[in-house]
């Protein structure tokens, strides 16, 4: 039998085996996840928010920037959650703000997970001075206190939806780069990678088809917690007036007005709903992250 034949047989039997194995693994992970009641509840809530974010224009009773009548009116039959200082409907703003949070959250995670994963992969696979350089750069980015440096950079590049996603991602990738580097370092030692190298597979093929699939668990878990963190940080930026700018409603900037004692004490409907939405969303996503961590953990 020629060498290429052996290789074909090897690879076809291994893909077949891989398929069965990964299907089983997938089912096991889903099964473990479903046992975590809070994580399932969190997932349902998160999906609910996603649906809201997509359907925004069809479900808001008013436009988020439309002046609907009474100023700072308490909840009533026309404005279920009342209106703000400018007479805009709170419920509509709350719903519209969901879309902003979803975009910021998923946008940030998509950018930083991709970038951090590539850095981590390359760093661990090549080792040596490449690894040394990349890890020191990671250290540098990690040394800046997150909120401080984000505020500084946002104030310089200007607060807008894309710039906030960019800045959040710019200072979020080091954690995942380190994580991926760690898993790749251990996977790299395994026999099947040595086999892949000796079979002469190309480096990108080994990196993306052989190593990366085995490091996805921790990446997904980190990305989920990162989603919660991005939503929380954006709301903080908006609260301080350095996030997405009014009149676009965000949960954070809906709380900004509550810094005045009169709003805080006499118009709780202006700030409590937005605060609760942030809390519930972040809580739900964190529960999902916890469920995924347990589900991917081989020790459990």
């Amino acid at each position, binding site marked *: 039998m020629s060498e290429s034949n052996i290789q074909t047989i090897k690879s076809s039997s291994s893909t077949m085996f891989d398929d069965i194995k990964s299907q089983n693994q997938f089912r096991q992970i889903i099964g473990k996840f479903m046992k975590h009641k809070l994580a399932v509840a969190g997932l349902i809530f998160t999906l609910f928010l996603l649906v809201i974010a997509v359907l925004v224009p069809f479900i808001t009773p008013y436009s988020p920037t439309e002046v609907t009548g009474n100023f700072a009116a308490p909840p009533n039959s026309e404005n279920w959650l009342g209106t703000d200082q400018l007479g805009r409907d709170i419920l509509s703003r709350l719903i519209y703000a969901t879309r902003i949070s979803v975009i910021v959250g998923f946008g940030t995670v998509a950018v930083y997970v991709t970038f951090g994963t590539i850095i981590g992969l390359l760093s661990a696979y090549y080792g040596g001075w490449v690894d040394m350089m990349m890890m020191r750069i990671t250290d540098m980015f990690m*040394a800046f206190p997150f909120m401080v440096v984000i505020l500084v950079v946002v104030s310089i590049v200007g607060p807008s939806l894309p710039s906030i996603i960019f800045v959040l991602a710019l200072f979020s990738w080091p954690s995942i780069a380190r994580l991926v580097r760690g898993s790749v370092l251990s996977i790299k030692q395994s026999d099947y990678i040595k086999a892949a190298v000796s079979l002469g597979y190309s480096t990108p093929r080994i990196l993306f088809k052989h190593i990366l699939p085995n490091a996805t668990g921790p990446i997904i878990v980190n990305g989920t917690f990162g989603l919660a963190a991005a939503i929380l940080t954006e709301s903080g930026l908006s609260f301080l007036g350095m996030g997405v700018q009014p009149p676009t409603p965000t949960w954070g900037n809906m709380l900004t007005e509550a810094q005045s004692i009169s709003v805080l004490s006499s118009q709780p409907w202006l700030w*409590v709903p937005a605060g609760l939405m942030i809390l519930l969303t972040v809580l739900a996503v964190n529960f999902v992250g916890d469920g995924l961590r347990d589900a991917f953990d081989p020790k459990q």
Partner: protein
Amino acid sequence: MFTYILRRIFIFIPVLIGITIINFFIINLAPGSPIDMYLDPNATAESIEAEEEALGLNDPLYVQYFRWLGLILQGDLGYSMSSFEPVSQLIGERIMPTVTLGITSIVVALIIAIPMGVISAVKQNSKFDYFVTGFSFLGISIPNFFLGLALIYIFAVNLNLLPTGGMTTLGGDAGLWVRTLHIILPTIVLATAIAGRKVRYVRASMLDVLNQDYLRTARAKGVHEFWVTNKHALRNALIPIITIVGLEIPLLFGGAIITEQIFQWPGIGQLTLQSILSRDYPTIMAINLIAAVVVLFCNLLTDILYSIADPRIKYN
């Protein structure tokens, strides 16, 4: 171990230099010339040109970087663009309130988190354990500004028990009791987040230790369960806490910005936000640099302390 510490310090230096470079270039991304802030609106193009030349703003960026670095190394952080005071003086005035609030919050958080984590590990899967998990998730998920506003709403506005903000009562006496009343709410806000993050680490670390052989040996030779948990297990379980406290420092800086803003706490966090809103670049640059250096030092110190506390760690 000595070579390990030396190696850590050796790595620390290029990272430190890298931080100064990143910091310098971030600020230089800012639109406009720093000179715009000082200028007389009637200044002619030639006089602006002459002034820029005199200040060295037309030099290549790397020349400007080294000049700035030289000044920093001599302890000269420049002058604020909004108050025209030396930046070092501004920071000096604000550092103590932030340090006081930070240390109080970490101490309170550990007082809450360590016993909670230990008990929930010992009584794994009990009602208390679930309560602790719930508390931990709430702590990490609640936005600090929402918690702060809610606390002001409840304790200051409605119950009228505590002040809404500030470090002392304006014009009033600044005794220890008054100061204590003022620090309670901001401490709760910061400590909730820290305790929420720590409690699960303590629990996990305690669970790890509780399953180890040497504890079985201790029980077998008749050591009382109380001492098994609180002496034999706790000592090893608490080692990772060193790292975790070290990792809190950067988060504390961030939390301080929002918390100090809500409670009108006159610290570095408030100064940071003020200087960002007024685009006071020399102050921003100095705070950003100092914060990063403090974080880096804390990381180094954490690694060294850890290596002393846990002789099982291998240095390679």
